[in-house]
Every structure is written in C-alpha cells, then in structure tokens.
C-alpha cells in the first residue's frame, strides 16, 4: 500500500492531483459534453501523451527534443496504415486499376503494396510496431547523439531537422505515404466502425485510461533512483559522470521511453480523429507540444495534461472567433511562460494551493518538486 502511495502516486499532493485529473477526464467531462466535444477532448488528450513525455525528457532530463512530433507521427501513421489497409480491401477498391491497395497508391501508379506496408496487414504486428519502432528510432538517434555528448541546443536543433526531413519525406513520397493529405478515409478497426458513437466513447475512455497509466508509470520512473539520477543529470551532468554513471545510457533510455509514449498518443489520435497527416509531424506541432508541457509546468506530469487541454481548448475557441489573434496569443504565451512562469500551472498550484487548502501544507514543504534550474549553460555538453 505504501509502495502504491509513495511510488506510483507521489504522496499526498500527487495522489490528490491524480484523483482530480482522473475524475475530470473520466467522470466530469463525459457527463457534461456531447460526443462531438468529447471526441475533441479525446484528441487533445492524445497530445497530452507527448506533453507528458516531454516532462520526463525536458523537465526532468533537461533534454529538449523539438522532434516529439516525429514519434507522435510514427505512432499515428502506424495505426493509420493498418486502418487504411483494412479500408482498402479488394471488394472496397474494385474500381481501382489495382484493387486491394490504398487509393493514393493507385493514383500514383503503384501496382504492388510496398514492403514496409505488408506487416501492417496484421493488427498484432501493428501494435508491436507502434510500441517498438518509434522507440527503436529514438534509440538509434539517442545512441548516436548522447554517446558523443551532443546535448543542449545542438540536440534540439538536430531533432528539429529530423522532424523536417520526415515531413518532407512524407509529403514528397506521395505514392507511399499519401502525401500532404495524409492517410484519410479510415473506416473500420477489425470490422468495427470507428466513426460510430459507441466506438468514439470506447476510444475516449481507452485513451484516458492509457494516459493515466502512462502517468503512473512515469511517476514510478521519477520517484525511483533513476528519477533522481535524471534530475542530477539535468542540473550537473558532469558531476554525475564523474560519480561513475554512464550518463549517455540514461539519456538514451528516457529518450526512447518518451518516444514510445508519444507514439501511443499518435496511435490513439488516428483512432479518434480518423486520419493522419504530415501536419502533425513537422516543426510546428513538435514545438507546440513543448509549450503544452511548459504551460502545464515542465516538472509536473499532471500539469502537462492540464496545459495541453487548456491551450488546445483556447486554440479551438480562438481560431473559431478571432483567428488572427491566436498567433499573437500563442507567441505571448511562449514568451511569458518562459520569462514569468517557468514552472507553469503546476508552479502556480504549488505556490497558492497550500494557502487555499491548508491540509496540503506539511507535505508541500517536504515533497516540494525541485525548481527549474537557472544555470543550464548547454555549452559544456559539446
């Protein structure tokens, strides 16, 4: 019991925050919103996977990845490829010159299913691919970067370039990927209509459950010895190295783990939204994921979810009524969160909640999350 309380929930404050979040997304939101809005919230919650992964990677590890959209996209495309193959069964596509392949391939004069599409005919293999391929990709990048002590802004730029490369590749190789439109027109999952209301409810709750599970696992990682090491690496990487730890391995692990989480989010995105396109892979979505985490408070797993929900709700509301104001607001948000609230919503909560709710006081003093460092020069890592 104590293990669950301390390690998985993070003590009194952590438990309270977790229960509040679970109540909000599992009970309150389904009660007050119709299925259309709920589906929209479900979409936002898939971004929260990426935001949570950035809390681990950036908030605790000090590694800023500007390419989280890559992994989100890989997961999403994995799921989309499976659904697309199911939607393009020979009966559905008999008007094409080559029945049985996705429509965009037929338009691009491809007559045979490319080899890397073949595994996605099986649902089991698809799930395995979603969980392993992005993590493997992150492992390769991480291995190449971190063992050569590339870090800080260099790492950020290189992950950003990888996001650019992948986007151009997806857009350019229209015949294999669906190009700029992405993979659209997805209908069924193992024969089950994913656009029906029952499926949407199911995916919403599945998504929420997975998100909460990911938060619990991440909390476990952070409260373990590994979590302390991660923090130590963020603040004084050299000292950790001199203490005999192989810093690169820890970084590779957390980067791969973050990639896996983001990929799960991407797969859930495809299931709930019904398509996947390169506009969720590139620089802009990737950097927006960082701001979700930053607004929530980069060291708060639960804050990241609130940050994501808040920004996306704001984005939807604003782009409906004042589209021209949204970019100003978003830009201002980037600047103010960095300059004035480096600990985001979670920081405000930690500062003010104990005053409002006195019973949180004693715990807040002892279990305070370490503040964001102000002395990461980033230069010493190259």
């Amino acid at each position: 019991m104590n293990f669950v309380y301390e390690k998985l929930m993070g003590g009194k404050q952590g438990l309270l925050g977790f229960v509040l979040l679970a109540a909000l997304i599992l009970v309150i939101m389904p009660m007050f919103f119709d299925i259309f809005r709920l589906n929209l919230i479900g979409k936002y919650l898939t971004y929260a996977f990426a935001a949570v992964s950035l809390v681990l990677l950036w908030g605790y590890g000090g590694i800023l990845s500007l390419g989280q959209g890559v992994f989100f996209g890989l997961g999403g495309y994995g799921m989309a490829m499976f659904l697309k193959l199911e939607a393009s069964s020979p009966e559905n596509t008999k008007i094409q010159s080559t029945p049985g392949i996705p429509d965009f391939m037929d338009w691009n004069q491809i007559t045979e299913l490319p080899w890397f599409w073949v595994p996605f005919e099986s649902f089991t293999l698809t799930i395995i691919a979603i969980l392993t391929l992005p993590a493997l990709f992150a492992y390769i990048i991480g291995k190449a970067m971190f063992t050569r002590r590339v870090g800080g802004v260099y790492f950020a730029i290189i992950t950003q370039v990888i996001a650019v490369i992948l986007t151009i590749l997806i857009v350019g190789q229209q015949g294999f990927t669906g190009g700029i439109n992405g993979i659209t027109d997805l209908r069924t999952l193992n024969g089950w209509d994913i656009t029906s209301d029952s499926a949407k409810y199911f995916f919403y709750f599945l998504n929420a459950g997975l998100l909460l599970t990911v938060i619990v696992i991440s909390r476990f990682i952070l409260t373990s010895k590994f979590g302390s090491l991660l923090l130590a690496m963020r603040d004084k990487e050299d000292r950790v190295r001199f203490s005999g730890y192989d810093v690169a391995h820890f970084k590779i692990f957390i980067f791969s783990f973050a990639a896996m989480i983001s990929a799960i989010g991407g797969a859930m995105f495809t299931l709930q939204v019904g398509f996947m396109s390169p506009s969720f892979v590139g620089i802009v979505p990737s950097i927006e994921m960082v701001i979700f985490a930053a607004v929530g408070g980069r060291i708060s797993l639960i804050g990241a979810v609130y940050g994501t929900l808040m920004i996306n709700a704001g984005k939807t509301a604003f782009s409906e009524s004042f589209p021209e104001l949204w970019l100003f607001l978003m830009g201002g948000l980037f600047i103010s969160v960095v300059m004035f609230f480096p600990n985001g919503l979670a920081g405000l909560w930690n500062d003010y909640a104990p005053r409002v709710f006195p019973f949180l006081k004693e715990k807040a003093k002892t279990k305070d999350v370490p503040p964001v460092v102000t002395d990461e020069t980033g230069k010493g890592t190259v």
Partner: protein
Amino acid sequence: MFDEYTYSELGSIFAMQGFAGISLFSVLLLMALGLAIIFGQMGVINMAHGEFMAVGAYTTYFMSTLTETYFPSLMPYYFLVAIVVAFCVAGVLGYLAEYALIRHLYKRPLDTLLATWGLSLIMQQSFRTLFGAREVSPTLPDWLLGSYQPTDTIDIPLNGMFVLALTAVVTLGVFYLLYKSSWGLRVRATTQNRVMSGAVGINTKSVDRYTFALGCGIAGIAGAAFTTIASTGPTTGTLYIVDTFMVVVFGGAASLIGTIVSAFSIAQAQSLLEFFISGSMAKVYTLFALVLILMFKPEGLFASKVRR
C-alpha cells in the same frame, strides 16, 4: 543519373545550377553570419532569425512601393538605400528584442529557443496584419533584371551576381569589424571568456546587445537580397531557419570560415541535386547527409578552439 547527358551538357548544367546555388548560398550565408555571431557569442539560439530576414524583405518592399509612388525618377537607386534601411530596421528591432527578452534568459539557452519562437510567431502575425497574407515582391530596378550569357547554353542571372557581390561586401565588413576593430576585439574577448572580459572592464552587456543587433541587421540585409530571387510572405522566414541552423552547426559555431564553407557546400549540394532529382528529395538528402555527418562530428567542420 548522369547517363542521359553528354559531357558538355553536364558542364553547362553544373555551371548553371552552380550559379543558381550561389544565390541560395548568398542568402544562407548572410542569414547564417548573423546567427553564427549571435550563437557563437552568447550561446543563444534565435528562432526568430528568419523573421528578421523577413523584416528586411518587407522593408525593401515598402521602400519600393514608396519610391514608386512618390519619386518614380529615383527607382534605379532605391534598392541600394533599401539595403541600408533594411539593415537599420532589422538591427533596431533586434536591439529591442535583446533588451526586452533575450538578456533575461542568457543562462537558459533552451528557454531562449522557446521565447524566440514565440517572438517569431508574433512577428509572423504582424507581417500578416500589416502586409496581408499574400506574397509580395518589390519592383526591382532594371539593372538587376536580365542575364549574362558567356556561351549559348549557360545563362547567368544578373541578380544572382549582385547578391553575391553584396554578400562578399557584407562578409568582408563583418570580418573587418570582428577582427580589426576594437569593438570586435571586445566581442571576441567576451566570446572566449565572459567573466574575465567583464573583470578587465569590458561592458559585456553592451557588447551582447550590439552583437545581437548586428546579427539581426545582417539578417535584414539577407532579406533585402532575398527579394531579388523570390517573393516574400509572412512565413518566408520559417522556411529558411532550419537550413540556416544547419549551416551554423555544420560549419562549427563561432567559426566564420566554417560558416562560409558550410553555407557554400549546403547550397551547392542542394542546387545540384535539385536538377537531377525532385527539389524535396534534394533537400531530404542534403539534410540527412548533414545529420549523419554531425552524428560523427558533432562539433562541426571547423571547431572553435575555445576551451569551455
């Protein structure tokens, strides 16, 4: 891919794509010079650098419209003035950005990255509000149009030559400023050892501010040069920012020679590949090759010898 061409055709292709690459090289180099100075000096990544280029481009457009409406007789000369004005406008904006934003974040480079991204969003939307979402291009003076034909198959556009000359002048100017002037001495001292420079009486804060303004001003010149080869839209800056980062990182931060060499090789690789394969794939191959090289040589082509 070379099979279907004869040697003389290949020669012409290389010459022409080479000159096309030189226009790209000039813009990339002008952008990267500013970015490299800022990054090398302060370790700050300026994500809004592309927008400072767009400021220069829009200033040129504004000057062109102004001249066309009020002083049509001065049209042949406005472009030279526009370059200077672009430098000043972008430089002043850069100075203000440093004062209001960047100087508070020197110890947090990753946060600077996010804050300047926010700045770039705001600037983009301002362009859209002020100049509209459509792409604009200034009316170029006649002497910039046309081309020079040394042989029948080779066709070299004059604007490319002009931009190259402009780049050469600016690059030499930066070299002079950094390596021959007393201000440059202070900049280099600050780059090498900030604390010690402060201790011997250099006002490092003022050095930072003017370096940032200079970098942004050069981006403004890049914008003016850019208008001669393409039209400007609110998102123009973003299209070039990643390439510029790669130029700086590949060249080795804080090495001007490295920046020049890497801008040249990246622009030429992209321009030559573009002729034989599609433009998007050319970019993919170039960027991919860069990432691979950087994985094996993270410090870039010309690593600075500064002990960190």
